[in-house]
């Protein structure tokens, strides 16, 4: 098993797993954001690879992708940022979040070479469902890489059982149908669904899609092992794009986002694990 997952994720029940887009708005900002997130208690980072056609994503992440693509970000370049994060103190696992077409173009061999070179810990492919992922599951195993699986409220019991059985890292529980994006409230049936997943999963269960308020985090705390926060953070980044791009204002911009995060995950009463 991947060591960083063992240390920072396994067995925990206060997981905070933030999602940021590589290169949004710049490589340097991405590194600084990752470090800040670790400081605020992140247990792993989902590093989103910008894509022209992000089918599972809502408008906030779509816009972030466009910002990153405009500066020429790619899967390979994104993976090459990770060692720079590590150099500057990042210890938590980094999960590459990429659409399948980008993986296909890079090629399996090259991808895992980069995984090994760059100390990458996990892979999440939103459009590679369980049925199509066997081969990639194997390769990930061989490379000590977690392949994060998703389950949704509409996932049948049969599939849920099969997916949970093979899942590594943590099980990503989609809170609602549709795409990523912030939602003000969850449907009550979601909690039954999370209970069901929890009961079947041998590994931590984290809930994502729409987490954007401390109240949600507090509620979810009772049902699962953590939250994945994407659009809510990316929207903060979007609001600070100018600040993040400019060296002089970067710290201030990051601190803005930091205080948002601090508030958001306050129900977890996290200790700072670094710095």
């Amino acid at each position: 098993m991947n060591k960083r997952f063992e240390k920072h994720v396994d067995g925990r029940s206060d997981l905070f797993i933030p999602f940021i887009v590589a290169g949004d708005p710049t490589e340097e900002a991405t590194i600084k954001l990752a470090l800040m997130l670790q400081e605020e208690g992140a247990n792993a980072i989902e590093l989103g690879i910008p894509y022209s056609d992000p089918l599972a994503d809502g408008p906030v992440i779509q816009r972030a992708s466009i910002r990153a693509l405009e500066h020429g970000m790619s899967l390979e370049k994104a993976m090459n940022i990770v060692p720079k994060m590590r150099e500057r103190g990042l210890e938590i696992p980094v999960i590459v979040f990429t659409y399948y077409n980008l993986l296909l173009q890079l090629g399996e061999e090259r991808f895992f070479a980069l995984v090994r070179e760059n100390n990458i810990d996990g892979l999440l492919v939103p459009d590679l469902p369980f049925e199509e992922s066997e081969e990639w599951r194997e390769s990930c195993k061989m490379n000590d890489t977690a392949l994060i699986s998703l389950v949704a409220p509409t996932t049948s019991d049969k599939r849920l059982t099969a997916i949970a059985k093979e899942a590594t890292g943590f099980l990503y529980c989609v809170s609602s149908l549709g795409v990523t994006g912030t939602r003000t409230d969850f449907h009550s049936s979601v909690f039954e669904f999370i209970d069901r997943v929890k009961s079947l999963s041998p590994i931590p269960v984290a809930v994502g899609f729409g987490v954007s308020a401390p109240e949600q985090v507090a509620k979810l705390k009772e049902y699962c092992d953590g939250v994945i926060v994407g659009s809510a953070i990316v929207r903060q980044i979007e609001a600070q794009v100018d600040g993040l791009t400019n060296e002089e204002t970067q710290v201030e911009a990051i601190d803005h986002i930091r205080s948002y995060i601090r508030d958001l995950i306050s129900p977890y009463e996290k200790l700072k694990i670094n710095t």
Partner: protein
Amino acid sequence: MSTMVPDQRGRYGRFGGKYVPETAMYALEELEQSLDEAMADEQFMANYHEELKKYSGRPTPITHAENLSKRLGGAQIYLKREDLNHTGAHKLNNAIGQALLAVRMGKEKIVAETGAGQHGVAAATVAARFGLECKVFMGKEDIRRQELNVFRMKLLGAEVVPVSSGSKTLKDATNEAIRYWVANVEDTFYLIGSVVGPHPYPKMVRDFQRVIGDESREQMEDLPNKVIACVGGGSNAMGMFYPFLQDDVQLVGVEAAGKGIHTGEHAATLSEGRLGVIHGSITYLLQNETGQIQEPHSISAGLDYPGIGPEHAYLSETGRVTYTGITDMEALDALKVLSEEEGIIPAIESAHALSEAIKQAPDMAKDETILVCLSGRGDKDVHTIMEHLGGEVDE
């Protein structure tokens, strides 16, 4: 050629499959099961064929293009007249089938994507006919270019949803339609317009379009020597080719070569694309080196798609079907020739197939035959044609 495609996983050789978010898997499973049941239900199929006949006006005839054949001095060219369908193209065959399935599944709403608006009009049409609510996603750029079709959809009672993500055209409208569908799968049916998308869509659309080829086989006295159809996503071509796959008939699919393959501005997915995933299916697609999907170019909005149906990728790889490219200008020439020789203004899409027939006919014997799928009528394109041919046609 005797293995059945797709297989259980929705694969055509190494193409096809279901590359969609987990949130969409349930909807696909539900669809697959309902589709199998429906196709095995005689009453359902009878309904479908009844609507094709009494609503859309099928069977569409086959017209012998005698003047054109004479002028070319080679093979006899026959036209399968899909332009005579209600709403003006083959698109309605499929829309009728899927809408009936949606009703059978108890869905109350349909959602569809559209580029030029032809499939959107077909979807809006069947929604009206079968009492479904209808949302059509359409790129903002396309809405601007296709004002009349937008109005037709609205007149039919559909809501046209402007898409401003990405390049604001067909591929983005498709993304948005899928996103909407996934979020509303309980009461909403996603009505795809071509043999693309995740399994079972490519198979379903083929099976609802095969009426083109089935009728043609029955209507032609002898098997044609060649069958030619244009390929955007590939639904009219699949519908036409499928019933001929086991026969000794040459099959030719024609992609849009746009301004010329070497200009980079084209939609020639099979010859210039690479393997990848688009809209849930592994197939060929136009993309840059790192895998970002590229905007295609074709004068015909209906061929302006960066991917191609997975079964075409398969038929190309097995060699059963030959795929060629026709440029914007060649298509316009063919359109003009057919208008003047036979009094039929074809859709610019269909003119691509025709142009290939015009190229090939002179090298064939006078007693050989080419069957061309005339997938749609050109009325929708008159504005585009005016812009390009204006000077030439006007005296």
